């Protein structure tokens, strides 16, 4: 309590005046020089008082700001280096976290397993999609799994035919929400009864979609909306934060798989036993090894019922002999994981190196500057500054520098994250990937801690070295410590140059590969060829009207001024989608595992693509 009054400026001034008078009176009594350095005595006496800390901090901060402002080159370089290290690391790690590490916002995600089928022939490549029949059959085995569900992403055309919106969604089996253990935000979620042939057409909408399209109005439940042209009743809203088990694809509209024949007649085949298209998540009712063992015992029997009887006996036998891999499933599924795991790891490694370089850079900057400041520190020591006081001031300065770098780094992390996401999404056509990419606070804290510790550590080296020698000696001769420090400095510089060179060569090679890819010869004409992507079926045309629609479209395009030639085709080169089927001339046997790639196209398709 008593100490608090020291915070009052008036009280402090009175104390200060008292001390000054006292020291003067004592000095008048003593022999000249007998009392030693009185400035220093006063300084140490002040340190006894509690308020000194706060006041000195204020003064140190002011001084540090001034010093940094007077050395803009140094400040900018150091702050930018730190910001780059912190920003890049945080961005990459946030992405890795979102794609690979983050749990789904569901009940006990660590209990969930994803089922993968491992066949003897391709043991290294487990199949992570299963058929609808398998998902349904496994859901009945309560002795193994308390819940099983299958799901996959889909796109739906939602709205009346006058204003159709393409919306991301999901097909899910009846056990989907039970398996995830979710509670509705409004209404109810889908259950097993919704996933039966002939069940009423119902849908669950996502929380974000509910807020965007229905302004979060509870009346949305019970309303009807047109999905692919068919009226569907909204029965509920999924909880906030949950965007589907397909990580990166926000499921705005979720419907039961049993409704595929009504909602997407062209895809009705998905329900067949030969179609392996569902990702399967399960919650074991026993321990994972136990569930694994029971599933292995039960599978030959199950497979007999769920594997297509149209398949050759050999394939059926192979399926029956396959085993299941119960992989952790709490992070959901995303194709991005398979595809970007390696690049992301490489990026992480590279950015870790960048952080290292940034730290080395800042360290050498601080060391180099220390040489320049030796004289300043010596003079301050000589005129009575305490050693601790000088160290504290340098500490404040390097902490301030590091904090500035960290702040800029956080900002950079935000920017980089969204930029990386755009790269992942692959630009225009493909459905956008949506992640919550708020910088990961753990990694942010970690990188900030590393760079601040680094700044403080190397900010202190000059403080200790210079002050250890003592004032007067230093003013005369600054050579000695410069030499020992320059060894540290030169090794830092070599490490930095080595690492930078490594990164530079790596980045150069990457860039070269990238430009090569952009200029690669696709084997067909690219100049002056334009592509229109249109699906008449989605617009409601069927059968003869569909054919007429395409014919009319082609005619109209050909009549456009400037169009020399036009053709329709089912697929286009390099679109990524292919249509492949096993085919041989009549009379020969079908080769195993060798399919031909098909394109259905109009007569002018080949001349159009051919080079002149």
């Amino acid at each position: 309590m008593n100490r608090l009054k020291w915070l009052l400026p008036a009280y402090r001034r009175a104390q200060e005046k008292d001390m000054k008078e006292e020291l003067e009176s004592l000095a008048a009594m003593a022999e000249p020089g007998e009392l030693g350095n009185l400035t220093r005595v006063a300084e140490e006496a002040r340190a006894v008082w509690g308020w000194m800390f706060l006041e000195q901090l204020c003064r140190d901060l002011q001084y540090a700001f001034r010093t940094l402002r007077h050395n803009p080159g140094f400040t900018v370089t150091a702050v930018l280096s730190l910001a780059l290290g912190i920003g890049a690391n945080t961005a990459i790690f946030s992405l890795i976290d979102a794609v690979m590490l983050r749990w789904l916002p569901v009940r006990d995600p660590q209990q969930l397993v994803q089922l993968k089928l491992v066949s003897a022939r391709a043991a290294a490549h487990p199949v992570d999609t299963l058929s609808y029949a398998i998902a349904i059959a496994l859901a009945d085995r309560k002795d193994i799994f308390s819940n099983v569900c299958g799901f996959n992403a889909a796109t739906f055309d939602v709205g009346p035919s006058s204003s159709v919106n393409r919306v991301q969604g999901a097909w899910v089996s009846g056990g989907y929400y039970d398996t995830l253990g979710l509670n509705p935000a409004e209404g109810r979620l889908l259950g097993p009864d919704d996933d039966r042939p002939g069940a009423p057409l119902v849908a669950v909408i996502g929380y974000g979609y509910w807020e965007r399209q229905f302004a979060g109005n509870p009346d949305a439940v019970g309303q009807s909306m047109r999905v692919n042209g068919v009226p569907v009743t909204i029965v509920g809203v999924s909880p906030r934060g949950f965007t589907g088990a397909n990580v990166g694809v926000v499921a705005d509209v979720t419907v039961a798989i049993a409704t595929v024949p009504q909602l997407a007649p062209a895809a009705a085949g998905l329900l067949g036993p030969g179609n392996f298209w569902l990702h399967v998540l399960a919650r074991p009712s026993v321990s994972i090894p136990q569930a694994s063992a029971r599933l292995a015992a039960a599978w030959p029997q199950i497979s007999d019922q769920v594997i297509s009887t149209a398949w050759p006996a050999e394939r059926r036998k192979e399926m029956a002999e396959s085993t299941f891999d119960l992989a952790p499933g709490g992070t959901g599924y995303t194709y991005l994981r398979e595809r970007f795991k390696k690049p992301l790891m490489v990026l992480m490694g590279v950015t870790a190196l960048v952080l290292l370089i940034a730290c080395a850079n800042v360290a050498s900057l601080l060391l180099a500057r220390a040489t320049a400041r030796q004289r300043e520190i010596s003079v301050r020591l000589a005129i009575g500054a305490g050693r601790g006081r000088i160290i504290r001031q340098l500490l404040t300065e390097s902490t301030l520098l590091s904090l500035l770098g960290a702040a800029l780094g956080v900002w950079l992390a935000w920017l980089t994250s969204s930029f990386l996401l755009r790269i992942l999404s692959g630009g225009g056509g493909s459905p956008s990937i949506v992640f919550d990419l708020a910088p990961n606070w753990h990694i942010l804290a970690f990188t900030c801690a590393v760079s601040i510790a680094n700044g403080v550590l190397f900010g202190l080296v000059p403080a200790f070295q210079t002050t250890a020698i003592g004032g007067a000696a230093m003013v005369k001769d600054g050579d000695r410590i410069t030499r020992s420090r320059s060894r540290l400095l030169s090794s830092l510089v070599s490490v930095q140059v080595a690492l930078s060179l490594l990164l530079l060569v790596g980045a150069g090679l990457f860039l070269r590969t990238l430009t090569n890819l952009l200029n690669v010869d696709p084997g067909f004409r690219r100049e002056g060829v334009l592509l229109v992507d249109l699906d008449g079926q989605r617009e409601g045309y069927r059968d003869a009207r569909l054919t007429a629609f395409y014919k009319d479209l082609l005619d109209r395009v050909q009549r456009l001024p400037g169009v020399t030639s036009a053709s329709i085709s089912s697929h286009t080169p390099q679109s990524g989608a292919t249509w492949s089927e096993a085919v041989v001339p009549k009379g020969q046997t079908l080769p195993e595992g060798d399919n031909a790639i098909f394109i259905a196209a109009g007569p002018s398709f080949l001349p159009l693509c051919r080079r002149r």
Partner: protein
Amino acid sequence: MDLLQGTLDMLVLRTLLLAPLHGYGIAKAIRSNSSEALDIEFGSLYPALKRLELKGWIAAKWETSEHNRRVRFYRLTPAGRKQLQREHSKWADFVSAVGQIMGPVSEEGKS
């Protein structure tokens, strides 16, 4: 002669037990009372005074000295008196304990 760590506070308190003194006076008193053996540096003494004052063991007051000069006199407070007693007994224990180990100064010890 160098001071043992932590004994300065005790010496100051003991010196003020006799009479209130100003800062320079305390230094002189310690020197003369120890037959010139202990020469306290003013740079250590003055912060020690501030420390003791803050702890409430000594109190200061501006007075006029015998040479008709305004000086700040320090005197022992009741709390300081108690503290001195504690330190004194601790010191006695310490001296006797060290004495038991070292024994009387012998001939070989002197060499």
